[in-house]
């Protein structure tokens, strides 16, 4: 299945993870691997934004990986935010109320501002 993960770092050192495709049981391990790497490679207080604009499906394994990433980044004193979820993806965060601890921003800039603090 189509899945692509790109990572870029801006001038402030904020990492943006752009995902395209389905974030599910088959593809979520790739994101987990990347988040583990990012959390430890960024030094103290990593700041990570995951851009979900290209994600058309999210299952519970994908949700688990995002929650694990949140925990990992925060344990390093960092911040993680999500941006631009499609309605069917946003619904997963709403139905499970995960949105209360892992906000999903409508715009990428808002997510970037949120992790900059």
């Amino acid at each position, binding site marked *: 299945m189509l899945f692509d993960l790109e990572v870029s770092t801006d001038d402030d050192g904020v990492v943006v993870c752009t995902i395209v495709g389905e974030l*599910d*049981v*088959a593809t979520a391990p790739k994101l987990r691997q990347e988040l583990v790497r990012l959390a430890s490679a960024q030094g103290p207080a990593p700041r990570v934004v995951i851009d979900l604009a290209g994600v058309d*499906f999210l*299952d*519970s*394994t994908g*949700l*688990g990986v995002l*929650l*694990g990433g949140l*925990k990992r980044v925060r344990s390093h004193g960092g911040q993680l935010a999500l941006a631009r979820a499609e309605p*069917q993806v946003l619904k997963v965060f*709403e*139905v*499970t*109320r*995960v949105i*209360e*601890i892992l906000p999903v921003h409508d715009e990428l800039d808002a997510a970037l501002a949120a992790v900059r603090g």
Partner: protein
Amino acid sequence: MAVAAPPRRGPPVTNPTGPRSGPRSGPRPGTALGVLVVEDDDGDALLVAELLEIGLPGAAVRRARTVAEAAAMLPGDVDCVLLDLGLPDSSGTDGVDRLIAAAPSVAVVVVTGADDERMGIRAVASGAQDYLVKDQLDERVLTRSILYAVERRRAEESARRLFEAERRRDDNARMERALLPRPILASEDTGLAVTYRPGNQGAELGGDFYDAVELGNGWLRVVIGDVSGHGPDEAALGATLRSAWRALVLAGFPTDEVLRTVEQLLRTERHHEHAFVTLCMLDIEPARRLASVTLAGHPPPILLADDARFVADDLRGPLMGIIDRSHWPSATLELPERWSLMLYTDGLIEGRAGPDQRERLGEARTLEIVRRHHRSGAVGEVLIDAVVTEVEQLHGGPLSDDVAVCLVDGRWR
């Protein structure tokens, strides 16, 4: 462990493979048969190499002078080791043990002196596939013995895999019983049909669980839940939570307290700290006219009466194990005179669908399937099996996630 003596040599084939046809099949299809000759005498090694050149012209032949050297080259691409038993760094059959320890799946054929055939037999008892007597060697005997040894080793390997697969199935069956218990239902006017299909073509259990208990006071309480992830840890956690749920319900605790305790248990028993659980719980009153639906991040149940529709689908209850100080909202549902409620885990609605299976089925199309089978008059197990089967067909085969479906039905009293 006693090893039954193998039949001497291979099956009686008049022309084992044809001396020049090379191996028909080896354990690694598409690659040359790998033979490692372990022999300290250069002359004998040369002789064996020439015989192999004639008998197995396609084989990749390598040589080692000692058992230690041979063990270091394993497993490499070696299918069969031809081991001389008179090497300087080994005595008796210990070379066989050391090579098998280095590469458990490799075939071993030992070569003994004419006055030492008993050593060959002992080597076979130690795990070698065959033995050859040095001065009786010719290309035919050598070829047949090597091919036979490789095939025999491969057959042993498949038997072992089969055994492990069976043991795993037994484990799965045992775990399934813990996850999916016999419900406690007392009255004849209450029905429960269930199905559970492990994901990944039956190979892997997930942590889906369900249970139903009818209490002495007439209340009927039902749960379906899903532990995030797949595998034995998740299945064990699901089984633990399921039995805790049953104990709390039998003890008469109210729903919110049951769920809070189950979550507390989840937080202390889980294998990693971001494992979570979603669940749906029903409390149906003794008169069977009202039901209370509670959702913890779980997809909503389907009410089947004249029509089929989702109920409580605007409830937003948090999933368990992630959000602190959770409270789970409930919705009260007025039941029609005869009703069925279908609970399911997300495997049912997340199968693939559409042309080339590019889309996901989703809630709306799942509801359409349920509605159609319900209208055709299917009930109970027939209904849920028809639904799951159609979902699998749209998916293009068995679902990758495990699926549990429970259908409870009853009528006003």
